[in-house]
């Protein structure tokens, strides 16, 4: 039966022969290794440091590339397969490169009731990229449609990288945010 199919909300599975994008970096810096060791020492089991180590890897490598996962496995002496399993489970580990400013728009019910869907459309239009498409040509922007960011009372809500939310985002505010990004007033993605 031929009927419309919903859009792929999670990352599309890899096609046969398709590989995850590679990152330039292959190894952790010495400081990052120290940081990971310090985190692992806090838990009774070093496996527990997988999530924090992947966050550090994403910061260092720019995104969670296969090399980043391998580096995490090496740093913690845990199986590479385990790290891949974890990294592929959680949506905040970006498996492909993102822009300098990763724009995350919530379109869940509360935000949608106050215009989240329209905000996402506008963000895509301004940034010139579709959600999940990777960085724009100038490398500045990437867009992601995310689920509830816990700003339901003040939606629609936009999160830039890991920074503070901007709430009640309308067209004027979106312009302000994007200008502020260009001026470097927001923390960059890999910082």
């Amino acid at each position, binding site marked *: 039966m031929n*009927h*419309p*199919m*919903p*859009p*792929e*909300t*999670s990352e599309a599975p890899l096609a046969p022969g398709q590989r995850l994008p590679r990152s330039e970096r292959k190894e952790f810096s010495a400081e990052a290794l120290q940081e990971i060791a310090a985190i692992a020492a806090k*838990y009774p*089991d070093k*496996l*527990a*440091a*997988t*999530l*924090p180590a*992947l*966050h550090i890897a994403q910061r260092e490598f720019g995104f969670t590339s296969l090399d980043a996962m391998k580096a995490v496995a090496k740093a913690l002496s845990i199986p590479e397969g*385990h790290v891949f*399993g*974890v990294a592929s*489970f*959680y*949506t*905040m*580990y970006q498996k492909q490169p993102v822009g300098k400013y990763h724009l995350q728009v919530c*379109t*869940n*019910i*509360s935000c*949608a*009731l*106050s215009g*989240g*869907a*329209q905000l*996402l*459309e506008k963000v*895509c239009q301004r940034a010139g990229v*579709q*959600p*999940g498409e990777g960085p724009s040509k100038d490398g500045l922007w990437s867009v992601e*449609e*995310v*689920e*509830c*960011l*816990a*700003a*339901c*009372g*003040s*939606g629609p809500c936009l*999160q830039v990288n*890991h*920074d*503070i939310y901007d*709430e*009640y985002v309308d067209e004027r505010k979106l312009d302000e945010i994007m200008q502020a990004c260009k001026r470097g007033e927001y*923390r960059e993605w890999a910082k």
Partner: protein
Amino acid sequence: MAIRTKHDPQSYTFAGFGSEKYPNLMLRGAGDLNNWTLDVYEQKHEGYVAMKQALKMEPVAVTEEVKTSGIRGRGGAGFPAGLKWSFMPKDTPERKITRYLVINGDEGEPGTFKDRAILEYNPHQLIEGCIIASYAMQANTCYVYIRGEFLWLIEKLELAIEQARAKGYLGKNILGSGFDLDIIVHRGAGAYICGEETALLNSLEGRRGEPRVKPPFPAAKGAFGQPTTINNVETIAAVPPIIRMGGAEYAKLGTTKNSGTRIFCISGHVKRPGLYELPLGLPLDFILNELAGGSSTGKKIKAVIPGGASAPVFSEAEFSTPMDFDSVRNAGSMAGSGGVIVLDEDTCMVQACLRLIRFYAHESCGQCTPCREGCNWMEMILHRIEHGEGTLEDLDVLASLTPRIAGRTLCALGDAACGPMESMLKKFRHEFEHHVTHKTCYVKGHELLAKVGAH
């Protein structure tokens, strides 16, 4: 370091808030960006008074006090917190047990934004609650699991923990009581399912956030194989006021079996969305009309989701329901996490339903077949109805799907998806039928679905 400097536009108060009738126990100083420090907490909000009081009591007496207060877990299930604490095994002369307290700050339920306010404005109240709860259960390590998106709040909480440690409120031999405690903040990475307690434990242990088979329950075998208690941020933040005012006094707030105050998160089509800390048992229409100012669009309110996205919707007939755990359950929904989402007359229920089901289909961990496949099928069928290609049979298929998902999965995510699906289809079936026969929405006004990506 990213301490928030921009003013937060949220509404935290209403006329009469802070009076005896509507006591302010959880949102003290909310909205004031300088409120989070240890100094302000100690000087203005009776900070760490309860902790000093509790450390002089027997651990069992602290648990008893919380039991007397009758506080029920604010995370969703509404399980009595004191009872949960008393399940933790005690040390025997032969064997010393390592116990853990885990705080669930994975606030992912659509419509809920209370934990965020506590972490933003009163992180010390949470830390004080952690100390008291850990002392009551004699746990020496407390993990606070916070969702990955809240990076700036994690940094803030870590600073607050440093402040408490410098004052001697954390670490070895707290204030000479002989009790040691360390709090470790663990950052999640964007998975709604990690709000489920055993999935959260897996995530804490560095695994995929897949819920575990119960039993064994966490009180027997939890984090790192040790007895563990998992409480919501709001539940633990309510502990200092309970100890300060005494369990019996706290129990007088709210209704008999649903004592205390809770933070209602009101969002959607109301004039004053925001956080409202209220005693349990106030009628929903009073909260919506008197406090939140009624509909913001001038249209009538058609439906309300009373307890976060997973709760079955209320239509007009149920608007007078008192908002406490038991009354909401008796009315056919659940009080859940306290997220009240208001939908006005112009909202298409098919779109609202599709948006919610898409969320569950996306967030299903994939472990149990009924949920993984069922949620995806519900999404596909709803998508097809929304795009005008549905048939009337589809509605029966949807109705037959929900009882095959709910109750047949390891955790409550399957049930959560069926809550809105089943209730919306039952109460607003005419809108679904209209979509099938007329190939368009029954009402037009709000477009809830973005037209981007590959549709």
